[in-house]
């Protein structure tokens, strides 16, 4: 019986591919992660390794990098969340 090819919209094709990629990464062996990090010159064993940018510390500049922390905290507390009364 010939293989049934199921084509779809670009978005459907994309999400199938992304699911396949995620499935590969879920079970990625630790040695492969270490090897990929080494390719990038990173040491994942280091506490502040660049590999953890965006995970354990922000990858992008934060408001607190530019503004007074106390002011930032007050703004965060005062800010209303849309739809939450």
């Amino acid at each position: 019986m010939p293989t049934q090819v199921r084509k779809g919209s670009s978005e459907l094709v994309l999400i199938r591919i992304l699911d396949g990629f995620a499935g590969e990464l879920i079970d990625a062996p630790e040695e492969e992660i270490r090897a990929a990090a080494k390719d990038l010159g990173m040491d994942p064993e280091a506490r502040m390794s660049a590999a953890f940018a965006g995970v354990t510390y922000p990858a992008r500049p934060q408001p607190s990098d530019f503004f007074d922390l106390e002011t930032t905290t007050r703004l965060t507390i005062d800010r209303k969340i849309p739809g939450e009364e």
Partner: protein
Amino acid sequence: MPQIPSLVDDRVLRPAHTALGLGLVSRMDLLRLKSIARVYARGLPPELTWEDMLQEALTRIVTGSRRRPDGLTTVAFVAGILRSLRAEYWRRATHGSLGNGRVPMDRAGEESLALALPDPAPGPERALSARQELVAIRQLFAGDPTALRIIEGLGEGLSAEQIRRAAGLSRTDYDSARRRMRRTLLREGLTCRPR
């Protein structure tokens, strides 16, 4: 509404620290999840970043707003949350209810509904974005024809065995190509680039 632990709420600790401290994930798991978050952020507009998605997903497991089913690893569970955050983003964008791109914590229970609902008609912007991302993925693996054949099979919804047969690959060649693909995806995933 689920409560976020105060340290997380004050951003003294990031959810990843808390998840590590509670033993929910290992450091290597976090790197897997970073790469997976980058995968699921592909084709999304700039206002929703992989970093935001990852922090949101980790917050949900830390606060217990999403409970991991027995038999599912935490990485697979968080990957599912990341996928549903993507679906939720597009569902809300399609229905015009997108505020600041964030999914409120009390909407967490709607994720399964978002996944269950069919996605009838992606708009032209979303379709264009998907096509651009498919081109970017093909470029990423341009030097690896075997990987490209596997990706084509994934896009057609074929199983691993169907892909292997359709591409005429031995099990060894197939596994080697998958290993190369993982290495490429991990390199892309661990980089410090914002997107």
